[in-house]
């Protein structure tokens, strides 16, 4: 009785053979008031859809095989990276302007090998155990770095002292609720200051299958995927933390990989098993950074000139748009 409730009246073979279900054209599953029957009809409809989809796939596959060589190439699936909105500030490797900028910016002395990086790592006030341990591990990873406790000193007073003692970079790890959650990286002799949000910090003991401690050798640096102008400058900033000449004997590599505006830091030891195969073993801490702001000049939150701030309303509107 009724339209399309229970076994469909148009179906001659009964409910056991849902293949030959014929729904009247104006029928919609959601019109059935009875929940059980509605559910049943919905399942049947779903099965039908799946069958049709499978049939379509098979047909397409057959056609493809039939064509053989002449078949059109397989469609490349769309990924976010594929669909990324083209950023006009993407750096072209042959760009002269960029090259000129880089030759004259604050990192030029580093890249010309005039200065050797010396890094001061510190935290916010009253760090907890996790942050302290993380700082120590970070200090082992970055050569020529020193950890100092903050003890309530103002950053603006620390900075002139650091400059006087020849430090090139200052890292401040901000802590909240006993875990590190922010990183301020400041290039010292008047260099830019980058403020990152730090997440998923893993200490060495939390990483599975880790190797021994990182040795004192200078690691190599890998910077992946820093395409835009902003990304380029951040990449240079991160590269300037490490001394120029890596010691290949140490076989250690520090990686900063940018993916969708998240910078993943990993520290590995590699070993070349053959010319086509390399094994890597993770040691050292890992964390991810997300850039929040980039400011010209050393740390000065009030009067500094900001080159880039992450503005949520303007910049997070598109899922395919990334800035680094």
């Amino acid at each position, binding site marked *: 009785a009724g339209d399309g409730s229970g076994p469909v009246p148009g179906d001659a073979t009964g409910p056991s053979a849902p293949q030959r279900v014929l729904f009247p054209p104006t029928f919609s599953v959601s019109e059935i008031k009875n929940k059980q029957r509605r559910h049943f009809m919905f399942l049947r409809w779903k099965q039908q859809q799946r069958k049709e989809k499978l049939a379509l796939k098979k047909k397409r596959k057959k056609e493809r095989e039939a064509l053989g060589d002449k078949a059109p190439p397989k469609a490349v699936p769309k990924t976010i*990276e594929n669909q990324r909105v083209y950023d006009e500030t993407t750096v072209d490797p042959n760009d002269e302007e960029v090259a000129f900028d880089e030759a004259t910016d604050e990192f030029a002395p580093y890249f010309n090998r005039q200065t050797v990086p010396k890094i001061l790592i510190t935290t916010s006030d009253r760090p907890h155990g996790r942050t302290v341990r993380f700082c120590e591990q970070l200090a082992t990873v970055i050569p020529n770095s020193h950890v100092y406790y903050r003890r309530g000193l103002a950053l603006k007073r620390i900075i002139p002292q650091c400059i006087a003692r020849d430090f090139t970079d200052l890292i401040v790890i901000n802590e909240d609720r006993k875990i590190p959650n922010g990183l301020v990286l400041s290039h010292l002799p008047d260099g830019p200051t980058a403020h990152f949000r730090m997440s998923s910090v893993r200490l060495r003991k939390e990483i599975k299958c880790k*190797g021994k401690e990182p040795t004192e050798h200078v690691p190599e640096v890998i910077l992946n995927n820093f395409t835009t102008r902003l990304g380029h400058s951040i990449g240079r900033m991160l590269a300037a933390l490490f001394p120029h000449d890596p010691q290949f004997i140490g076989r250690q*590599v520090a990686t900063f990989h940018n993916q969708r505006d998240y910078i993943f830091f990993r520290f590995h030891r590699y070993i*070349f098993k053959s010319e086509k195969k390399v094994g890597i073993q993770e040691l050292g801490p890992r964390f991810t950074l997300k850039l929040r702001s980039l400011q010209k000049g050393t740390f000065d939150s009030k009067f500094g000139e900001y080159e880039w701030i992450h503005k949520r309303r303007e910049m997070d509107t598109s899922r395919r748009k990334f800035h680094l």
Partner: protein
Amino acid sequence: CPQVVWSMLGNRQFCSYKMTTKTQNFCRNEYNLTGLCNRSSCPLANSQYATVREEKGRCYLYMKTIERAAFPRRLWERVLLSKNYEKALEEIDENLIYWPRFIRHKCKQRFTKITQYLIRIRKLTLKRQRKLVPLRRKIERRENRREEKALIAAQLDNAIEKELLERLKQDTYGDIYNFPIHAFDKALQQQDAESESESEAEREEDDDDEDVNKREFVEAEDSELSDFEDMDKLETSSEEEQEEEEEVEQKAKISKSKGKTPLKGPARRKRPHIEIEYEEETEPSTKTKAA
């Protein structure tokens, strides 16, 4: 009259300013001198009363007398106290001359406490203050999710390996690793078949630089860890041997092609060693044997 008021409010009936806790009663009236709910501290139950209150960093003395009890608007008389601590105390004394001792004393105490906390406020504002930025739950969750997805999309291990192999190809490592190219090696293969056996012993000792023959062993093994441990130990010693090794390896170049099949010649000679090394348990023993 105040006795009546007190008998109503304080003891028996309801007073909206009264807050009771397990041990004490508090009075929430803003003109209360001590903050407790007492017969002597209740501003409602005392017709002659005085308090000290501060507004925007300045302290005032408030006084209430019976004469003005009928005029609620003019009930509380306000006197500004001087910024100087001692002078202010004198002013309190002046104004509350002939007042009950209790009120005078408590006023001065309250004034002291207020000045102390004002000093503290001024000191703290000079220091750096923590800026509390509220977390937005939706945004946090969104960022975490995006981070996870970015991590999966990044395929970090592959990316790093690719980059390292690229660097190897572009010869950034120089002569440290000797992975010779196909054609060159096949030519040399026959020549150096003999010199291999001589330099076998030497090659087995050096773990730092990939010994071509050894690579076959290493590929068969599953764990890199044991490899790495030994590499670390022998790193320093291998530095001296590097120069020797390079020469040796240049002589004995075997093509590192995809499979092991073309290398059957030299591989056969190594077979006894291979067999031992395939068993991982006995692996340390072979290393010690080699060294």
